[in-house]
């Protein structure tokens, strides 16, 4: 379970979130919406303990542990997994190499290389990624869609129990979006993780139906509801749905 209580977050002395609260129970799917620059991605960076984001007030617990006393590695090992909007490219480090190191570092039983490669090959086929990508440098020279699919491949291997999808739908064509969304849905049905989706698009939520929808504005959650709230925003926009004033947005 994730519990964020009254946190205030600063980056370089600028307050991005203030008195922000959010609670996500195991197996729940939540959506975080908000205008550009509202601070949605800040939430994901704080949770993964990016030290550029300073939590000056409040507390966060993940599975009963004080998240603010954990570092990025510990949070990831505790099962939190972030799919970035724009995953970084790392030249010279292959996906297979990184995943094997990650599994070893997480203390998971070392797999036979052949078995490991076979499982990666199956995942590649499922995600419609060339199998050569397993041994290619992480995200290097890959399209936006390929990067997102590789992130999902990492997810299937590392088996997290809390997934943050930060605009995973950006830069995906219609077919890729469907494939990505179906893969996440399949993972959800297999492992029942908690999921926090950050998105501006309806298409993703047509496949992965969220139970809870939150709107971020004025540095905190200003409205929460169910799927209907998201539909209202998709139809009328934040201003049209009388949820948020443009002056609330902060860059």
């Amino acid at each position, binding site marked *: 379970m994730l519990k964020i209580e009254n946190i205030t977050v600063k980056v370089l002395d600028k307050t991005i979130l203030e008195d922000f609260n959010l609670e996500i129970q195991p197996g729940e799917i939540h959506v975080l919406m908000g205008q550009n620059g509202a601070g949605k991605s800040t939430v994901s960076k704080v949770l993964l303990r990016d030290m550029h984001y300073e939590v000056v007030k409040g507390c966060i617990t993940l599975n009963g542990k004080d998240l603010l006393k954990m570092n990025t590695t510990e949070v990831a090992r505790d099962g939190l997994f972030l799919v*970035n909007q724009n995953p970084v490219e790392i030249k010279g480090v292959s996906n297979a190499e990184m995943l094997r190191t990650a599994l070893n*570092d997480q203390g998971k039983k070392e797999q036979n290389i052949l078995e490991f490669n076979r499982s990666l090959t199956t995942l590649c086929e499922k995600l419609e990624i060339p199998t050569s990508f397993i041994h290619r440098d992480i995200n290097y020279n890959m399209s936006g869609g390929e990067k997102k699919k590789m992130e999902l491949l990492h997810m299937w291997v590392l088996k997290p129990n809390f997934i943050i999808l930060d605009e995973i739908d950006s830069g995906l064509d219609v077919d890729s979006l469907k494939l990505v969304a179906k893969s996440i849905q399949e993972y959800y049905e297999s492992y029942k993780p908690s999921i926090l989706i950050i998105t501006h698009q309806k298409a993703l939520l047509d496949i992965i139906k969220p139970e809870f929808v939150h709107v971020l504005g004025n540095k905190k959650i200003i409205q929460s509801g169910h799927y209907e709230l998201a539909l209202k925003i998709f139809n009328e926009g934040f201003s049209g749905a009388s949820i948020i004033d443009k002056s609330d947005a902060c860059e």
Partner: protein
Amino acid sequence: MNKIIVEQNKFYLSDEKVILSSFPSSFSLFVKGNVYCGIKDFCNKDVKIYLEENSHLTLEILIYVTNTKNAIKIYNSESSKLDFYYACVFCGENELMIENEMTTSNNKNQIVVRAVENDGTLIVKAVGSIEENTKNNEYVEDIKAITKNNHCIKIMPDLLVKTDSVLAVHNATIAPVDEEELFYLKGKGLEESNATSLIKEGFLKGIIENEELKEEF
């Protein structure tokens, strides 16, 4: 069939792919045709590379150096090409001197150096001279280092261009391990030390194509 002819510290390479591991401290490489040369051992060497007309040499060096001074001089004949990749982990006091004198035209040389500090210092001096009355030459120096401390490496580029008909580029970067890359790997559950090692190793191996060199490193 490939063959290397060795005569009194002179290596003659012609249209071949070769991995070399044992050299005298001072030697010359004569290159003809299309040659790939990987080098495993390159410590305290003084080498002169002569590229014949229309030749193309891809030279890859992937090494650990400790208290080492390496010097490389490159001479191009007309329309020759050099792709030189030098990747090293250094400790102790080290120097790398690369001199390229272009007195002919239509040459394309690329000098790529990647260095990772393991407690030590490194001075890289790269001198590219493109002489008068030459045309259509391309000369690129791309030197990057990952350090713990920015003072432990000095990169001294020296481009001496005496003609207008040339494309000469120099790029030098000295920085610690990239924070974004580190955060990404830690976000997958890697220990900081393992993530750092992977990034450093990838930084070096990223410029090397030859699998044998990479595996033995």
